[in-house]
């Protein structure tokens, strides 16, 4: 196992809903190694998406620290963390969230526009990742012209195009049928194995969680169980049998 690159120390998150204070995270300590594939499971309201958002630099903790690649991202101001995010984190969403008026190519190119790159360099990178997700034949199609599975492939290509150190996926198969879900999970696993990407996957689906090396269970804002990959693989085999 590689050295940890993600350190989450005593993370608390409290937010207000109307007049009610909600304690979403209650002191999370968590680490991820470089190249590790971790799934985060738990019931609705357990705090898994909150934790994912804090690790991805989308939200600020009430207290505690998130350190990634030696940088304390929980202390960064909004503009700095935005640029950090663009360089180091790739996002895969449940509902793909592609820009409807842009083509598949342009959607994938979007994150690269934040970097000082020539059009030729951008083109090369975009074509490479679209080839990786087997969508080279759909470059000029808009999201509305693609199936759900194809849209999620574009979403994965967009997450990969900046070659980030971390990919966070929030219910990436939540809007897909079983067959397409399997294809997407195969793709994510392939990305993890061939590109050695660090992946944090939030899911309700045990089958999806089973693809990860390590499964983390959350409940009421705390980590409740951690399961090693081997056990998950056994479970998966049992389910399949």
């Amino acid at each position: 196992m590689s050295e940890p690159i993600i350190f989450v120390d005593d993370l608390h998150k409290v937010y207000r809903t109307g007049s009610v204070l909600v304690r979403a995270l209650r002191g999370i300590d968590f680490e991820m190694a470089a190249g590790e594939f971790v799934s985060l499971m738990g019931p609705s309201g357990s705090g898994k998406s909150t934790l994912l958002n804090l690790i991805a630099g989308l939200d600020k903790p009430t207290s505690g620290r998130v350190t990634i690649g030696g940088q304390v991202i929980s202390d960064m101001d909004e503009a700095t963390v935005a640029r950090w995010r663009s360089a180091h984190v790739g996002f895969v969403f449940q509902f793909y969230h592609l820009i409807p008026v842009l083509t598949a190519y342009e959607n994938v190119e979007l994150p690269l526009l934040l970097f000082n790159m020539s059009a030729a360099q951008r083109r090369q990178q975009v074509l490479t990742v679209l080839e990786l997700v087997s969508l080279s034949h759909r470059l000029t199609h808009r999201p509305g012209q693609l199936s759900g599975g194809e849209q999620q492939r574009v979403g994965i290509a967009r997450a990969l195009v900046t070659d980030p150190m971390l990919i966070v996926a929030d219910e990436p198969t939540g809007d897909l049928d079983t067959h397409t879900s399997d294809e997407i999970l195969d793709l994510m696993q392939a990305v993890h194995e061939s590109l050695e990407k660090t992946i944090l996957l939030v899911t309700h689906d045990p089958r999806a969680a089973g693809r990860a090396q390590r499964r983390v269970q959350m409940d009421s804002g705390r980590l409740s169980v951690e399961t090693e990959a081997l056990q998950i693989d056994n479970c998966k085999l049992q389910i399949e049998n």
Partner: protein
Amino acid sequence: MVPASYNYRNLIVRWKTTLMTACGFMLVVAALIIMLAFVNGVRTVCAESGQPENVITMKQGCSDEILSQMDKRMVSRIEATPGVLRGDDGWPLASRELFMAITQRNEETQQYVQIQARGMYPVALLVHTQVRITRGRMFRRNHREVVLGIGVAREHQIHVGDKLPMGQLEWDVVGIFEAGGSAFESEAWCDMDQLAGHFHREGVYSSVVLRTASPAAAQQAVEYLENNRAVAVDVLSETDYYEKQAQQTNVLRAGAIVVSVFMAIGAVFGVTNTMFAAIGERVKDIAVMRILGFRRSEILISFLLETLLIALIGGALGMLFGYAINGLTLSTALGGKSVAFAFKVDAPILAIAGVFTLVMGVIGGLLPAMSAMRVEPLEAMR
């Protein structure tokens, strides 16, 4: 930066709304251009009417020739002003002129038309040197003949050889003249004695125009007459006189701006409304871009540019429509006269329209763009 293709494709997707909003800008810009072109056209006529070497004198207290009446005695004193050039015959180049606005009923159309007649002596052509007979010939002394300015000839469709009714008689149109686009082109010129005799104005003059050697000499003549208590006249260099006439258009210009500003407020509300609706439909796009790392300022600029794009489409259409009026000739009242002018759309007017468009776009787009900038990604994605 957010790619511009994102903005223009969204405008194309919502093309009906885009077009309707742009039409608001188009109307404002077209109206502004037309109003300014009107003012510009009238000012151009005034600017081209005066010659800096000429001095115009009218009876004291009369700001316009139509009100001025001077007798022979006063006119003779004016002609004796030092610095006035002399012709080959030794007489001063001083043009006595009788200006009259004659309202005449057109028997064919049964409508009343106004003819501005200027009675004069042959010396007038040596004083008003910008005047050229372009068709036919000059009127003859003691004949009931007129030469028409090109503006009045065009407006009333009168040609050389036609008869022009003035008073109880018909006058022979013997020539057409051009005067560099000046107010003279709106007049009918004829023999002083014929005009005065027919309208019982013998011995009465509206103005005397003196020809001097230079603008400085004209200024000296003005000062001389102003300080001469023997002549009770209002005296101005001809350029100053027409500049004063042109100042009447300042009110029109101010009115044009005020009307345009009020129209612009409507257009600005229109584009603000459109953009708020557009942003409401696209909060998820904005959230995704923010999550991917685009800064708030980049979102602000993107949506501001989108509004400016709508404004520029409308502004360009407005300029196109506004420019279509360039060169169109009409008559307007200026002082006591009717002046033929051509709408003049020039580069400064187009520049003003362009700036106006941009200002409307920025004002209309700022609030929606700021609301786009404030979208909280996590809330928007829920």
